[in-house]
């Protein structure tokens, strides 16, 4: 995309976020606030992973430390020990994250790849297991809570004020991280990701560089934690849980770790769907896991990778020849998704205690179950025909759609060699289609 188009799109997005509270319900304001925090956390994680190839399986440690540091500062302000403006509270989170990241990163970055992942995992698990025992710092099992104090003429009582506070921090941090990727250190991170030996051979102290990049990533994770503390006014030791570390990994890779904004979009989308879908289905985590594994298998670049691949593709060859095969893909994909969702929701509706109770009450008969807003007979012909037909037709269409899509991509690349043909050809070979 042209630079000016990118900037315009980003300004539009920020304007949209500023205007958002005018159009949505208060409940949604809170949801979008959490989405921004998740997006910031994912961007921080992606800074270490995407920029320097450091796969951290314990980023919740710095997120949690940031949250607790912010809470302690808020507590001190609440007890009138000293004055500190509420909007700047996340600074404490950033400081805590950076310090912890610097100290632990100095040790952990001596290792790479799987060993680094295991080290970061061990550190966050260590925090998670000892935090409930440390009363003074992490407030035992119940955690610590406090109140936001008014400052700068705002009360910081209603969600809307917290929303704008979070938005301000989100935009500021995103700009900082974007700028960081352009600095020499950021570029060195890329070099180390591709080939650390060569970077060292060129005379760079890669250990120091990796430590600093990791600490910066942890700092922004800490800011995200601090924002969470400001929003929730409370936190307990579960902030350190492997669940939080796992979520940020899932969301970032679904969004696409190779692109700058992919992780943020992935985290925001997954958090949003997590909220919306948790009302509709109890199997949301299963759908998220399936999406993640499918992307890992067929499109390692994530959703962001797919989009950026297509932006380049469309700019080089236009989009008309892709319409027909993609429509086929869409139909096939929709059928498969519909069949999968129907199956999962049906299993869920039948395999639980409530349904077993209903069956027992009916004397063991297979009583109708409710799924997706309709009632189905468990042994009915239609009930079994729906998923079989959906999945069957979808699976039959899939190879056809795949063949046509590959043909369309190849046709375009051979007819009019574009500037970035190698990239698209490589993507094609790697099965990104």
């Amino acid at each position, binding site marked *: 995309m042209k630079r000016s188009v990118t900037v315009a799109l980003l300004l539009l997005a920020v304007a949209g976020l500023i205007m958002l509270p005018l159009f949505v319900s208060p409940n949604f304001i809170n949801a979008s606030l959490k989405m921004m925090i998740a997006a910031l956390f994912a961007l921080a994680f992606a800074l270490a992973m995407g920029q320097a190839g450091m796969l951290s399986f314990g980023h919740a440690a710095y997120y949690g430390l940031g949250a607790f540091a912010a809470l302690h500062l808020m507590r001190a302000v609440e007890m009138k020990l000293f004055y500190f403006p509420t909007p700047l509270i996340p600074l404490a989170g950033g400081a805590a994250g950076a310090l912890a990241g610097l100290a632990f990163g100095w040790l952990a970055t001596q290792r790479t790849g799987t060993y680094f992942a295991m*080290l970061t*995992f*061990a550190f966050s698990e260590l925090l998670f*297991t000892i935090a409930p025992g440390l009363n003074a710092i992490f407030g035992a099992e119940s955690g610590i809570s406090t109140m936001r104090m008014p400052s700068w003429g705002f009360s910081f009582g209603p969600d809307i004020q917290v929303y704008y506070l979070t938005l301000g921090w989100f935009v500021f941090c995103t700009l900082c991280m974007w700028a960081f990727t352009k600095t020499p250190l950021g570029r060195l991170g890329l070099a180390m990701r591709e080939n650390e030996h060569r970077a060292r051979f060129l005379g760079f102290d890669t250990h120091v560089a990796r430590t600093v990049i990791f600490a910066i990533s942890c700092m922004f994770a800490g800011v995200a934690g601090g924002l969470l503390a400001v929003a929730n006014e409370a936190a307990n030791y579960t902030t350190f849980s492997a669940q939080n570390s796992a979520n940020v*990994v899932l969301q970032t890779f679904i969004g696409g770790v190779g692109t700058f904004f992919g992780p943020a979009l992935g985290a925001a989308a997954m958090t949003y769907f997590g909220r919306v879908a948790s009302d509709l289905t109890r199997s949301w985590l299963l759908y998220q896991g399936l999406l993640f594994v499918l992307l890992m298998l067929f499109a390692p670049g994530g959703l962001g990778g797919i989009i950026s691949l297509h932006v380049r593709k469309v700019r080089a060859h236009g989009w008309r020849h892709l319409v027909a095969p993609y429509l086929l893909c869409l139909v096939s994909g929709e059928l498969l998704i519909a069949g999968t969702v129907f199956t999962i929701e049906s299993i869920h509706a039948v395999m639980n205690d409530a349904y077993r109770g209903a069956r027992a009450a009916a004397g063991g008969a297979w009583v109708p179950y409710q799924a997706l807003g309709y009632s189905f007979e468990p042994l009915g012909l239609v009930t079994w025909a729906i998923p079989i037909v959906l999945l069957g037709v979808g699976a039959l269409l899939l190879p056809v759609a795949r063949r046509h899509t590959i043909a369309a991509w190849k046709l375009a690349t051979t007819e009019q060699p574009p500037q970035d043909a190698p990239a698209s050809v490589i993507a094609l070979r790697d099965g990104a289609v």
Partner: protein
Amino acid sequence: MEYFVVSLLNGTVHGLLLFMVSAGLTLIFGMMGVLNFAHAWFYMLGAYVGFTVSRLTGFWFGLLLAPIVAGLLGALIERFMLRRVHHHGHAHELLLTFGLAFIIEEVLKLFYGDGLIAYQMPSYMRFAAFNIYDTNYPFYRLFMGAVAIGMFVVLYLLLTRTRIGIIVRAATYRPYTVEALGHNLPVIFQGVFAVGTALAGLAGAVAGAFFPTGPNMAVDFGTLVFVVVAVGGLGSVVGALIASLMIGIFISFAVGLDVSLASLLGLVGLGSWARSVGGLLTLQLSTIANGVPFLLMMLVLLLRPAGLMGDRT
């Protein structure tokens, strides 16, 4: 004394169970460099399969089927998923298995609900093997230990005394040389992956009947399994055995001891000072016992990444 003997026995059995699960993981890692994040989820799968089959046909049949189901699933995952992403590198394989762990857990929850399931040993195995002082020591714990020891002996003999074992061991050191000598490397990998996951499934079916079986069992156990594999040395079966016993016995002792740094300092007359400082110094060992394995894991990975018995990093 009673506490000592019982804790030692419990710890040994717990350690042997840990070993059953981590043996497969360490073999897979040593051979393919794949850290199978989902490994403990095969342990969970084994317990759920054991439960389902034992309700239909009987306990022993469940014990037989659980490793078969886990091993088959492992073989399929290796063939159709891991092999696809192999060229993207080890971090990518780790991420894929991480996603698979999610799916296994959620699918099991879909069928069996979010709560614990009532997987029980058969009633004729529910008796005290012997009495230590006043404690009845359950026979089933000894049974679990015996299964694990039996498995270790079989695995050890298989690896050191058979032709397949020689090829597998050679493939962990020089995979491409083995391939050049005409052995089908992908099939060897697939076989090791299947055996590793089958062992985890067997452990799940055996242990699930004694310990609580529920959606959290994989996470609780899985974290410890990583510790064992890292401490014992990635790829070393003997190292995994030593590390498992160490960690099992340590946890078993630590949860029952009311010791803190302050009480240790009390021995040299600094007790009251330590108590006034508080914080980490007065933390009871029992409350931080679960954290100590992770500390150990961090130390080993930092100081000696090859682990206790490993010879490679």
